[in-house]
């Protein structure tokens, strides 16, 4: 019980510290933040095993009141250690064929394994390059904590994105995701996890809250992760987002 309280305390302190980094301004698209087995529109602390390699191909569509954007996303993931992973992400907008590269990293600094579950917390960091090809466009940092059990899963994450060129376009993202396995299957069976998420975006001034539903379907080292996200609440100064859907296939080896 004591370790559990310590864990919750660490999570809360981390999220508050991340919130304290600062809330910036304006709108920004929320990309598919894919780093291993984690929420579909959020992020989790899970990392790949030491020496493990992952590939992911995803498609995402953002539909807002003003425009529609369809993008393909490719990701390569590598486990430097069992608690430290790096990922190279390429996002290609299909309307203009622009490709943006991001380099991200995740370090899991706390992990407590229990029978059939794990409590863990990771710090996140990343850089995003300009779509024209050179130079730094922005930074991302954050903190994520989760409990992942055989039946229930809970993820809490806060991320701050700062754009170098236009600090006013920076954004604070916070996510809470709850997952459940309707059927506990064995290791050699397909594993289905249903996910419900709340994804918040804080601007200065402004706030947008989105709801999302999706699922993971995994079989051995393959995963399929589709999800649908829609607007729940927004302040008047924020553009109305219609919906967003993503679908991705991931393989680890």
């Amino acid at each position: 019980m004591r370790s559990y309280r310590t864990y919750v305390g660490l999570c809360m302190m981390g999220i508050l510290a991340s919130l304290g980094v600062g809330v910036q301004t304006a709108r920004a698209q929320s990309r598919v933040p894919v780093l291993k087995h984690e929420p579909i529109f959020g992020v989790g602390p899970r990392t790949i095993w030491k020496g493990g390699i992952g590939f992911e191909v995803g498609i995402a569509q953002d539909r807002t009141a003003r425009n529609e954007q369809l993008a393909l996303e490719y990701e390569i993931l590598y486990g430097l250690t069992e608690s430290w992973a790096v990922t190279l992400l390429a996002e290609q907008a299909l309307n203009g064929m622009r490709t943006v590269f991001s380099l991200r990293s995740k370090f899991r600094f706390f992990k407590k394994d229990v029978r059939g579950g794990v409590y863990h917390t990771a710090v996140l960091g990343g850089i995003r390059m300009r779509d024209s090809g050179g130079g730094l466009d922005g930074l991302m940092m954050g903190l994520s904590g989760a409990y992942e059990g055989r039946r229930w899963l809970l993820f809490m994450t806060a991320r701050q994105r700062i754009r170098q060129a236009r600090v006013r376009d920076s954004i604070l993202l916070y996510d809470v995701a709850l997952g459940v396995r309707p059927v506990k299957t064995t290791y050699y069976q397909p594993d289905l996890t249903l996910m419900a998420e709340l994804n918040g975006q804080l601007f200065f001034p402004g706030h947008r809250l989105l709801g999302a539903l999706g699922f993971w379907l995994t079989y051995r080292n393959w995963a399929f992760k589709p999800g649908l996200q829609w607007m729940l609440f927004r302040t008047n100064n924020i553009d109305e987002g219609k919906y967003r859907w993503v679908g991705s296939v991931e393989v680890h080896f």
Partner: protein
Amino acid sequence: MQYVREHMVRYSLAWLLMALIWAGGLNSGYAQSHVKKPDVVLWVKGLSCPFCAYGLEKKLKKLSVVKDVEVQMDEGKVLIVLDPGQPVTQEDFEPLVARVVKEAGFTLERVEYTSGHVLDASGHPNKTGS
């Protein structure tokens, strides 16, 4: 717009339905254990999702002394069949599997020897479990 929204919801439900059917179909045939008589049982903490445990299976299978591996998620166990042609001592085996389990991202709780294949420090068969 309403038309698109309706289709998105419909396709989402269709994906979920297909996933459930596929999962159900495969579930019916692959639930059986294939390691009947393990030489070693690893009790591992942190086994919560099969997708994440794949690395553990892969790393264990890379060990030359390991012939077959079966992960049992709910029990938190990994059953290991050792290569009968390669004798191994407990002194060598335990640090090796402890490192592999750690590098896969899990915690090794204890090791149980069930067949006497692994030798203890004095060269006698080690059998700590049933």
